[in-house]
């Protein structure tokens, strides 16, 4: 991979600080000109192509593979099977830590779900490997698969999501419901969904002795490296992973997936570099998905429209061999001030790949159900949905009573509603038509997502020529880390962004934690900030303790770093450049490290969440049932906005995802075979350009002194929450038909003429 040549286009010219500027992506030109090297673009000398054969049965055993036929095919080099593969150092079934999920790496002939890898064909060309895989003609012993939300006995999982309790309550829900004037009891269903990142999972693996070079898109360099090290029994230092760009991940590239391990195994087996890229349909199985849910909400309100109780139960599924439980009911913990709240989960096991985090895991599924139910409750109380939400505004976190570290949701409601023109909304549904006679409906939803922090480390250096270096193994999934983190870095070392060498995206750099939980900018940003402060501190010590420096003796008054100079805080006429300080000290470079992590004391004391309000307008053909979104306004408060342009893109993306959730996305599973029948982008529908009207995003000013030193919350996932419900509620408002099974389908809206 060549050195990254990140641009400094005129769009970067600016005055003042770096943080807060709407810089365009520094890697944008590389990407639009095709020069950004994604993992599968690497072709080391002598590289072979590996193609997985995947199971067509969802449950059973592979009883035969025609390896001989595959090997006879011209160009096929080897076929990796459970009987012919490199030995792993540990059993992949062992969960060595909570972030390790079981994977299928040919450890047995058992089949646990459709599309599970059952063999890997390695060949000189992609075509030969593909045909070799087809020639394997597997035969199976098949058992009836477990499919769907009623596949078997349900059970209460010990935890949901990542270590959250499956049941929580506060107050007496049954008493609250009994005392209510108005009640609703409604059940909503959400389908299985697949991440479908544009870039498929891929890996190029090359062994050199016991050194291992990997090109692979990952949202978690350090976690992936540790997993590879333990599976192959090699030291961390022997492994180098490059992941400068991801073509999206959405959670499915967070952890080392089975197919990527197979790529490393294949390279070991044949003693040559190997590339393995999943085909689109192969992404519907071994790399995670969003589990389906069935959610029952029981809500009570008093005569004034004040909530008396909120009971949210979610049924979900996990695989037959591992645990990930979509924490859907957790969405009811933070938004509405009910005196009694109970959330609970149960699950059944089915023959799928293990579900996993998918953009806003739990929050997205839970939000569409909760926001629909709140809409239903508001209507039952005869109240405007916004007035109802304001009446039940949570001044403190309802479940815990903790104050919020910051919460500008009221401003989100106000600004979003004003921009949208919400005040003119009729209370009753099916009241509005446009000139062409189409039904028009307006709906809203509240958005929320926790402000999380993981752990990260960064290394900062100032060089003798006065330029800076910031190193952190961070991940650019397309969200703009190359730009936003560099902006934070530039400010951290008091340099213009073009004077800073920002290094990222490889495993030999300090661990940036995982790019997930909408926490990457906050976590990596905090590490960068503290590394920058530390290196500037060292530089200041050098200067202020040297009597030859104009800053000598500034100790108590202090210095500030700006534009490559240290400046005496109480006398700006006295300053010295970084280069001068280092030259005098005879140093080529000065460096320091810094870390970023959550502050446990603050977390104890405060509830930390980003918030937003989304307003949607849909039009529905009254006879034909086709729905189209025509307007959407989202107002979000998410702490400090590092780069408004990139934040807006993230929020647009989230809102479109919400639209997709309400109207389009669904993996259709054949209930007899357990196979997914629309595992391609032609039939697994997501919105296309014609489905997306101009969107309007407002970022509401919010200063949060508690979440982290920079006041950053996340924006990666919140856009989905609220939006999906807003669209669904708008469909109800347009038609008077409440659809509780998502995505909303044409046939459900055909009932009235």
């Amino acid at each position: 991979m060549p050195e990254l040549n990140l641009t400094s286009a005129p769009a970067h010219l600016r005055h003042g600080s770096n943080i807060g500027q709407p810089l365009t992506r520094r890697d944008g030109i590389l990407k639009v000109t095709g020069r950004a090297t994604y993992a599968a673009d690497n072709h080391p000398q002598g590289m072979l192509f590996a193609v997985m054969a995947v199971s067509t049965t969802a449950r059973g055993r592979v009883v035969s593979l025609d390896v001989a036929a595959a090997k006879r095919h011209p160009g096929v080099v080897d076929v990796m099977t459970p009987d012919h593969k490199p030995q792993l150092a540990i059993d992949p079934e062992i969960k060595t830590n909570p972030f390790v999920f079981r994977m299928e790496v040919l450890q047995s002939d058992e089949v646990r779900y459709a599309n599970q890898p059952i063999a890997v064909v390695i060949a000189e060309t992609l075509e030969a490997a593909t045909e070799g895989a087809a020639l394997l003609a597997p035969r199976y012993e098949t058992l009836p698969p477990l499919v769907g939300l009623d596949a078997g006995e349900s059970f209460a999982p010990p935890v949901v999501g990542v270590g959250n309790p499956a049941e929580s309550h506060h107050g007496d829900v049954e008493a609250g419901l009994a005392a209510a004037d108005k009640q609703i009891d409604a059940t909503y269903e959400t389908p299985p969904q697949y991440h479908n990142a544009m870039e498929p999972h891929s890996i190029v693996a090359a062994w050199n002795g016991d050194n291992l070079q990997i090109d692979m898109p990952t949202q978690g360099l350090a976690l992936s490296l540790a997993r590879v090290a333990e599976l192959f029994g090699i030291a961390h230092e022997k492994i180098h992973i490059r992941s400068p760009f991801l073509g999206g991940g959405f959670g499915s590239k967070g952890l080392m997936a089975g197919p990527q391990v197979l790529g490393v195994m294949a390279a070991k087996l044949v003693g040559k570099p190997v590339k393995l890229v999943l085909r689109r349909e192969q992404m519907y199985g071994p790399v995670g998905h969003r589990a389906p849910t069935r959610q029952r909400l029981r809500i009570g309100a008093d005569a004034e429209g004040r909530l008396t109780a909120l009971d949210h139960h979610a049924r979900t599924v996990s695989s037959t061999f591992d645990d990930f439980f979509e924490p859907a009911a957790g969405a009811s913990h933070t938004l509405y001030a009910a005196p009694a709240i109970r959330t609970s989960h149960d699950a059944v096991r089915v023959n799928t790949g293990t579900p996993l985090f998918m953009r806003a895991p739990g929050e997205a599924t839970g939000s569409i159900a909760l926001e629909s139910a709140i809409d239903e409750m508001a209507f039952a109380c005869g109240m405007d949905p916004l007035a109802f939400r304001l009446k039940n505004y949570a001044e403190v976190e309802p479940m815990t009573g903790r104050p919020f570290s910051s919460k500008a949701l009221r401003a989100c409601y106000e600004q979003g509603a004003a921009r949208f023109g919400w005040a003119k909304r009729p209370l009753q549904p099916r009241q509005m038509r446009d000139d062409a006679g189409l039904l028009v409906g307006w709906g809203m939803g509240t958005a929320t997502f926790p402000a999380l922090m993981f752990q990260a480390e960064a290394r900062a250096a100032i060089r003798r020529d006065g330029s800076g270096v910031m190193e952190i193994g961070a991940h650019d999934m397309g969200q703009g880390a190359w730009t936003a983190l560099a902006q934070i870095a530039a400010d951290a070392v008091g340099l213009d962004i073009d004077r800073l060498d920002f290094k990222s995206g490889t495993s030999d750099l300090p661990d940036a934690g995982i790019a997930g939980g909408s926490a990457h900018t906050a976590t990596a940003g905090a590490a960068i900030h503290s590394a920058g402060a530390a290196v500037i501190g060292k530089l200041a010590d050098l200067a202020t303790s040297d009597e030859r420096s104009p800053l000598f003796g500034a100790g108590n008054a202090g210095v500030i770093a700006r534009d490559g100079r240290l400046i005496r805080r109480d006398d700006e006429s006295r300053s010295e450049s970084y280069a001068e300080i280092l030259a005098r000290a005879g140093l080529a470079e000065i460096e320091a490290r810094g870390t970023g992590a959550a502050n446990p004391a603050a977390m104890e004391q405060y509830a930390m969440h980003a918030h937003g309000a989304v307003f949607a307008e849909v039009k529905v053909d009254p006879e034909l049932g086709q729905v189209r979104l025509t307007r959407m306004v989202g107002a979000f408060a998410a702490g400090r906005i590092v780069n408004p342009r990139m934040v807006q893109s993230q929020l647009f993306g989230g809102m479109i995802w919400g639209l997709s959730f309400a109207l389009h996305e669904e993996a259709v599973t054949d209930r007899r075979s357990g196979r997914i029948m629309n595992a391609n982008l032609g039939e697994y529908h997501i919105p296309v350009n014609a489905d997306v009207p101009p969107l309007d995003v407002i970022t509401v000013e919010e200063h949060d002194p508690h979440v982290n030193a920079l006041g950053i919350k996340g924006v990666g996932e919140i856009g989905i929450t609220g939006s999906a419900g807003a669209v669904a509620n708008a469909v109800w408002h347009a038609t008077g038909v409440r659809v509780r099974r998502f995505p909303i389908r044409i046939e459900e809206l055909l009932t009235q003429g």
Partner: protein
Amino acid sequence: MKQFDYVRPATITEAVAAAAQPGAVFLAAGTNLLDLMKGGVSRPDRLVDVTHLDGLDGIETLADGSLRIGALVSNADLAHDAEFARSYPAVAEALLSGASAQLRNAATVGGNLLQRTRCAYFYDTASRCNKRTPGSGCDAREGENRSHAVLGWSESCIATHPSDFCVPLVALDAIVEIEGRGGRREIALDELHRLPGDAPERDTVLEPGDLIVAVRLPPAARGFAAHARYLKVRERTSYAFAVVSAASALRIENGRIAEARLGLGGVAAKPWRARAAEDALKGVAPTADAFQEAARRALEGAKPSGDNAFKIELARRIVVRALTLAAAGTPARIPALPASPFASTSGAIHA
């Protein structure tokens, strides 16, 4: 991928001879065929690439007023031919409502006619499918079949033909010109596609080696230009196959329908010509009642093949709407969202 021969014949005669061999198929733009080959659904031994044949990419008006469209004309070029769009607006609208701009740029007229069903079980080689493997069974029958046929299906196959283009073509009495081993012949488009019966593996009446060289619209087809629409209900605003679609074309004289044409898409294994509905409209005023009656007749005999009863009612409503739109007159420009129920209000600049 399975290895196959690739031949590029110089003449139509050579092409026909090459494709008449067992295991040979024609390759046009490949937007359907190559997908099927990559999925292992089609495993031909030989591809006969017809895209370099001369004389198949023209659009010409014949002396009698017919229009002859070469089989290699791209879907996009045809739809964007201003004269064509003026004379056969419903056909242009149908073309533009199909697939995506990129696919339309590549896809050919001949390939569009002969594209295969989108039945998911046909694509999934692990499923039983009588169309793919004769006699193996039909997994769609008890499976995920909300988009399957409601007209003309049989127990052996409930698949639909997915083309939008074919729907107004069949309504306008299009004729298919074929070059085969026995020389040139022509058939009505309505006779090209077969209903499944007990041989769903045969999509069409074509014989091995038969090459579609052109599609012809007879002189009368121009007579509907003032009142012709295509309407397509789908699961997103663009880039989706029809759940149900309809092409309607009226000749209105002195406030009465002199002649009506009606085709339905997404309902059967062939583009469905609704002649009984056309007859009911002949000579009557274009009223809502008349359109309701036509819709009733168009769907007479329809029955669900699975989870798709809604398509019957939806088809009736689409017929009424398509006729209503046609009666109101062909718009001066093809809407930015062609064939969409949102055509009139889109504000969009493209689909």
